[in-house]
Every structure is written in C-alpha cells, then in structure tokens.
C-alpha cells in the first residue's frame, strides 16, 4: 500500500512538471513548432464562404481559375494599353507630368523597387541580380541614354528591350513617367535639370519659419 502510494505520487509530480513546462512554453507566445497542416477550425462559423475570392481556384470555369483573363482588345479603365512602336516613341510619348517634389519622390521609390535589382541604385548597372547571372544592362547615365528623349525611355520601360521585359503591368503610366523623371535626376547628378530650387528644403524652411513665428507669438 505504502509503495503504491509513493509510485503514484512520483509519477503525478513528473506529469505535473512536464504538463506545466508544456503550457508555459506554449503560452509564452513563441513558436515552438511549425506545421504543414492548415490551422484547426472547430467551429468554422462563416470563415469560409462560398464565393469567388481573389486568385482562388474556381470549379465554375473550365480552366479552374477564378481570376479571369481580360477579353481580347480590352483596355484599362484608367489609361491606355501601350501600343507604340519604337519609331514613334519619340513623337507619340509626350511627357506631360510636371516635375514636382512628390513626382520625384515617387519616381525614386518606384526606381528603387523595380529597377535597382539590375540597374543598381545609381543606374550604372551591375545590380545584385546581375551578379547572380543576369545580363548586365548598359548604364542609364551614359551619354547615349542622356540624349534619349523622355518618350524613348518611356518606351523602353513600357515595352521592354532586349532581355528586359515590359514593366507596363507593374508600373502605371503615371509611375513610368515619374521613373523617367527620376532617371533624369540620376543622369544630372542628383537634381532634375528642370528643377532649379529644391522644394523640399524650401517647404521645410517655411514650416520651421512658421513654427518659429508661432512660438514667438505664443511666448509674447
């Protein structure tokens, strides 16, 4: 009787310790394991509704895709499908986007996102993807490219060139013009040729001046 009782006590203590360790580990908020099986849903309420979802499969269509390809000759609702040949690029692509601080900021952001993998941050090529085996693109700041019209650069982004594919699906028309403006900044060594004063510092000066006067006023 006495030995039985002791055994029972020993195993319950071991069990309790393991049990506590297990839950303390689990509830400490860190992943203790990963799983390939989808999360458990005991009561799935309306979590999974029978509707067409973005990029989901669909049994309704023969090809099994819920996302449909556009019908032939479809044009985007805002903008046009790019359909200009290289010969017409200089004359048909007209850059009507004004050079402003926001446009240049946007151009920089899109350039850093879409172009730097190959063209690098300075536009001279030899980006990180090129180092992995992609063809090295010619420098964007070479005199040849500086002489290109805005329309010609726009054409290269929109239609692609050599091994570079079209970026019309990734960059909207406006974004492409912003990138063109930013390439001019790179070619001109940090400032856009059409922009003499840097508006950002000007604006900053204004706001600091305003804040200064407001502070002075409140002090009085």
């Amino acid at each position, binding site marked *: 009787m006495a030995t039985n009782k002791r055994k029972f006590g020993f195993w319950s203590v071991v069990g309790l310790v393991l049990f506590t360790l297990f839950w303390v580990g*689990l509830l400490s908020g860190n992943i203790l394991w990963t799983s390939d099986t989808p999360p458990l849903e005991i009561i799935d*309420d309306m*979590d999974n509704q029978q509707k067409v979802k*973005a990029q989901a499969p669909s049994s309704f269509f023969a090809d099994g895709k819920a996302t449909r390809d556009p019908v032939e000759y479809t044009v985007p609702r805002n903008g046009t499908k790019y359909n200009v040949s290289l010969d017409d690029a200089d004359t048909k692509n007209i850059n009507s986007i004004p050079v402003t601080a*926001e446009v240049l900021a946007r151009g920089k952001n899109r350039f*850093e996102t879409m172009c730097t*993998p190959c063209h690098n941050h300075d536009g001279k090529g030899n980006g990180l993807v090129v180092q992995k085996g*992609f063809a090295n693109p010619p420098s964007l700041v070479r005199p040849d490219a500086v002489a290109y019209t805005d329309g010609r650069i726009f054409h290269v982004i929109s239609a692609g060139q050599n091994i570079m594919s079209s970026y019309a699906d990734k960059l909207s028309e406006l*974004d492409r013009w912003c990138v063109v403006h930013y390439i001019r900044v790179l070619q001109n060594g940090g400032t856009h040729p059409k922009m003499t004063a840097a508006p950002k510092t000007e604006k900053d000066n204004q706001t600091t001046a305003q804040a200064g006067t407001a502070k002075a006023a409140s002090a009085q």
Partner: protein
Amino acid sequence: MFTAKTNQRSKTTILAGLALLGFISIVSYFGFDNAVTDVGYRPEQPIPFSHKLHAGELEIKCMYCHTSVEKSKHSTVPATSTCMNCHVAVKAESPKIAKIKESWETGKPLEWRKVHKLPDYVNFSHARHIRARVDCASCHGEVEKMGVVTQMKPLSMGWCLDCHRNPQANVVPAREISGIFTGLDSYEETAKKIKNESPSRGEGKWIPMKDCAIEGAGVYEHEVGKASVAGLVMPKKLALGPENCGACHY
C-alpha cells in the same frame, strides 16, 4: 462488496476525474487560441521559393512582386511572368525552375498555398495599411529572413485591435526592404512619426457615426495626403486605426 480498498479507489477516481476536467478546460481555453492554432503554419509550396534569398540577399523589395498591395485590398501573388523577368536568364536550367517554366509555357498558373488567412467576413484592405506606412512585417513578420514563409502573428481580432488602439508600440514602420512609398518623408522620418506623432487612444479626431443604433460607433478621421499630380499614389497621414465594428465587418 465494499472492501477496504473502495475508499481509496473512489478518492483516486474523483482526483483523476478532476484532473481530466482541468486538462480539458485548459486545452479548450488556451489550445484553440489563434496564437496556438494559427501561428507556426508553414505549408509546403509547389516550388521551394525562398524569400530569404530573393528579398534578404538580393534585396528585391516586397513590392517588386506584390505590386497590387498599395492599390488593392489584396496583395496578389505575382504572375509567372514576374518570375520569368529574371529566370529567363538566371538559373534557367535549374530543376527547381522547371515548374515555373512549364507554367510559363502552358499558361496554367502555379498553385501556391495561402499562408495568412483571415475569415471571409473581415474586409481587410492592404492598400489602406500600406498607405498609412504600416510595414509588411507588422503582420507577416520579417519575411526576408524566412526560407519558407511561416505565419508569425495570430491574425486574431484582439491582435488587430492592439495596433488600432496603440500604434506607437505595435506598428513596425515602413522599411526600405518593403518598398513602401512614404512620400516626401524618408524611412527614418516615417519611423519617427509613427513612434512620436501618431495619436494614442482617445487623441485622434473622432467622428461619431450618425443614426447608428450602436452606442459609441464612429471612425477616426484620416487626412489623406494631397498629390500635386492627380492619380499619384500618396501616403496617408499617420493616424489611429478605427475601432468600430463597421470598419472591418461590412
């Protein structure tokens, strides 16, 4: 019938029953929490695609592939053509690329498995969060360090509200690797603004909802940045996320 052991047995039975009940209640209370069931979900994808290599080492921004994230509710998985932008030349003969090539030639999409799933009655918009300069890592963890994408956050409602109520402490500000457009602010300035300037709970401009049966319903007003050119994507002013039910469940 009743031996001397009966007393002992009944005591043991009661104790065991109580222990079992305790175990079941603890498991059902904590065990089915989203943090336990959802976090750590790591499905095997059709292709051993590594974010660690592409985003981490090659520094390709999140938005190079997930382009629709700032314009749409959904952050779309890229089309096969996006993979082929580089893989026409890079490692074109690798057996790991074979499935992409096949998809490229046949036009049949790859069947990626969805990792982060919200219930279908939640209207989560990626664009709103990206334009408020909330980084991808706030909800997805540091994906650029993951070989296989794993769910790192519970994505439960309580967890959503943590950020909506107290963004300074919980939001990861836009980082360079994500490629989020921060307007005229640099990434450092954005981080500073989120830490210092975003209002804490009760400080935002609260617009109560008119003619609503639910007491206390309303929205925090967000000031949208004005672009000098119409159609230009501009980041929103950093502000507190809405807390009323109708903001996400509509």
